[in-house]
């Protein structure tokens, strides 16, 4: 940051708001129409102008973060929506709507402008069937290559038989697997069933000796149709259990909050303050549980340490899960938030619960120093992770990285502070960043973030304890069936455990969403694996993957 007055981007008002008219002027030759979405304005453009519009917006108006691409099919057209925002101020948002004809759904690709568009467009092609011209590698990403039809398109027949091949992966010792121009290389599969891939991820790697020349993640082994499930469930109660299963490392409440926030803004629902405090507290417990697992498995990946750090992490997780179970009734799939509040109040006797929470955070601070002893100040650990898996901030931005991955690259981006929701802006806490850009910084950010979470929990307990007895409203009045007005569209995000967890919903006047799109942070973060690991040794690839802390339920949805 320079000391001079920061220059305003085009369309930015001095008070931090956006002047859409100025932006429309900037893009005057392209904008066909302007729409009003709940979170921001949307400009409608021609399919051929996508790269020009996006690069103008990125270079001149400061929209350097392409959070998400939503593809959907209407009765008369296909539509791709690019959701843009700024890393400096994520409340400044703009959507770019690209309609394409039903008989020829082709649109220009945005991969030249944002690298993250690569996978998003592949997904849109795979599930909805929009083709992107000049895309470097437009193949299916979530469904098997031989799948027939595009499952989220309108005329997809779910009952038709399908054939999925089991392709034998080439034998690494076989001569034929050498890359044609480099006789010394070797092809190596990691996964889909491999202990270091944190689930069912498949990495196709090409090695030169022990160095990684190329890595190509192959995902979709856990694509369980989350978007379809949400589109056929009702807003009020049926959708809420599904978010728990996106990022299932105990981050349930963080995910539920993403849905709750989006649907509440869509249907204009109030949330009582008291419920917001409970949400904030329980969400931070989830963050601790999730980061603990990330740290534990990271140690497992790095030195195969199944006995100490991993077990310590599991032990501490048991304690958080106990607290969450007392509160919500479940250990993992909480289903605790409701639209307009939470399911029920804190468990009785309240004093005992507060006591338990306090003693947990107190003890947890002590065990954090243990983690620092065993990990961050451990020489062995440092030798393995410092200066490996480098992700420079510019690259991280182009790949749309968020969460601890971005913060480990020095990008100061945390939606809890920058786009406040819940009770966060009333509390004292810090956003943790580290500009080492390597595996070490990412692990360190997680460790330090847990400390901040404990801080937040403590403050919430104090607030809850002193909350007046007759003002403990846990839910506002919510109509029994929710039917948001047709053609209302919204994109909203919260800071999940892995980063920006966003949801796009389009309502069509019924009690079910017409389109429900999940922007998952792991999906975007995983794309940057290439940058981190190419040219590194193969053990560093595993370390980089561990430091990304992906969860396949969220990558594949």
């Amino acid at each position, binding site marked *: 940051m320079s000391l001079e007055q920061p220059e305003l981007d085009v369309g930015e008002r001095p008070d931090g708001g956006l002047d859409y008219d100025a932006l429309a002027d900037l893009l005057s030759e392209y904008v066909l129409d302007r729409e009003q979405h709940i979170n921001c304005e949307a400009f409608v453009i021609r399919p051929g102008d996508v790269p020009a519009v996006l690069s103008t917006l990125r270079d001149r108006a400061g929209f350097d973060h392409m959070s998400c691409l939503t593809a959907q099919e209407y009765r008369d057209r296909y539509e791709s929506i690019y959701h843009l925002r700024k890393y400096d101020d994520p409340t400044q948002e703009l959507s770019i709507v690209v309609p394409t004809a039903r008989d020829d759904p082709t649109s220009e690709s945005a991969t030249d402008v944002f690298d993250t568009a690569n996978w998003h467009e592949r997904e849109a092609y795979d599930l909805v069937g929009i083709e992107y011209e000049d895309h470097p590698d437009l193949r299916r990403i979530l469904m098997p290559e031989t799948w027939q039809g595009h499952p989220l398109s309108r005329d997809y027949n779910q009952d038709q038989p399908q054939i*999925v091949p089991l392709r034998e992966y080439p034998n690494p010792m076989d001569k034929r697997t050498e890359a044609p121009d480099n006789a010394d290389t070797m092809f190596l599969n990691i996964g889909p069933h491999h202990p270091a891939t944190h*689930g069912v991820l498949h990495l196709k790697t090409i090695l030169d000796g022990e160095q990684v020349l190329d890595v190509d993640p192959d995902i979709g082994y*856990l694509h*369980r149709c989350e978007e379809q499930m949400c589109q056929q469930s009702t807003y009020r109660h049926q959708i809420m259990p599904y978010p728990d299963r996106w990022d299932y490392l105990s981050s349930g409440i963080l995910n539920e909050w993403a849905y709750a926030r989006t649907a509440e803004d869509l249907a204009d629902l109030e949330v009582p303050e008291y419920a917001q405090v409970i949400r904030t507290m329980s969400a931070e417990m989830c963050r601790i549980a999730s980061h603990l697992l990330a740290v534990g498995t990271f140690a497992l990946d790095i030195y195969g340490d199944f006995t100490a750090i991993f077990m310590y992490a599991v032990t501490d997780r048991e304690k958080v899960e106990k607290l969450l179970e007392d509160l919500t009734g479940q250990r993992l799939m909480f289903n605790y938030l409701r639209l307009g509040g939470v399911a029920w109040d804190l468990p009785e006797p309240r004093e005992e619960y507060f006591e338990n929470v306090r003693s947990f955070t107190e003890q947890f601070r002590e065990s954090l120093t243990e983690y620092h002893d065993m990990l961050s100040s451990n020489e062995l650990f440092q030798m393995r992770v410092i200066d490996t898996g480098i992700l420079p901030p510019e690259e991280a931005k182009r790949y749309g990285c968020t969460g601890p991955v971005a913060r480990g690259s020095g990008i100061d981006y945390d939606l809890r502070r920058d786009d406040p929701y819940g009770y966060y802006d009333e509390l004292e806490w810090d956003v943790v960043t580290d500009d080492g850009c390597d595996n070490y910084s990412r692990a360190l950010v997680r460790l330090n973030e847990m400390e901040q979470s404990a801080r937040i929990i403590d403050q919430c307990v104090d607030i809850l304890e002193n909350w007046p007895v007759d003002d403990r409203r846990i839910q506002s009045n919510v109509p029994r069936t929710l039917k948001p007005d047709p053609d209302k569209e919204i994109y909203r995000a919260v800071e999940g455990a892995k980063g920006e967890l966003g949801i796009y919903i389009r309502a069509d006047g019924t009690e079910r969403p017409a389109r429900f799109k999940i922007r998952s942070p792991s999906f975007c973060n995983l794309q940057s694996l290439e940058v981190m690991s190419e040219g590194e040794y193969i053990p560093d690839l595993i370390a980089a993957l561990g430091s990304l802390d992906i969860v396949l339920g969220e990558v594949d949805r």
Partner: protein
Amino acid sequence: MSDEDQLHDTLEQAQSTQEARMGTGMDERFNSKLRQAFGTSPFMLTKFDKFMNWVRGNSMFVLLFGIACCSIEMMHHYGTKHDVDRFGAGVPRASPRQADVIIIPGTIVSKFGPRLKRVYDQMPEPKFVVSMGSCTISGGPFQEGYNVIKGAEEIVPVDIHVPGCPPRPEALVYGILKMQENIRAGESSPVTVKPYELDEFGDLERDELVQELASEINEDDLVMRYDWVEA
């Protein structure tokens, strides 16, 4: 046990000879059940099968295999609080070729179906399957999904189902104990033809779908064909 009992001396005899053998200074801990059972004669007559089943049930090598949300609870059941290792079933193996029990912890989708079958096939006989969670029973919450296999039994034979979404670690431990009982009794679920098997592409009936894919898949590629309606 009754026929075995007759082979040995009474308990007192057994202990006294034992003590004589061990000399002084040894404490009670050395009087294990096994020693008592062996008594003065260091032999025990039993059927080899029975012996092997007993051994097998008490030293299970579980495949380290995570699919979805249930695998988080599976990790906890290896962990400090629940510690399945107490029951002789807590040594995870990373390679299917060294494992004899597979816990299937999560949703199986179309892309993973052939892989699951392959992993199962790679395990040496005899092998046992615990399916964990509603997803492996019926597809669970995702049953209506276009991509989800409606239960693990469509692909592999399952010995024990542990219901829940996710089951608590205690439930999984209970399931494992039940399976150990089965194994000791020499039971395992029969290997039968499942709705979804791996076949060579050339062997499939030449219908419209097969014709269409003929250019993409080789005759001798292994494929899994999903007939959603019939299954």
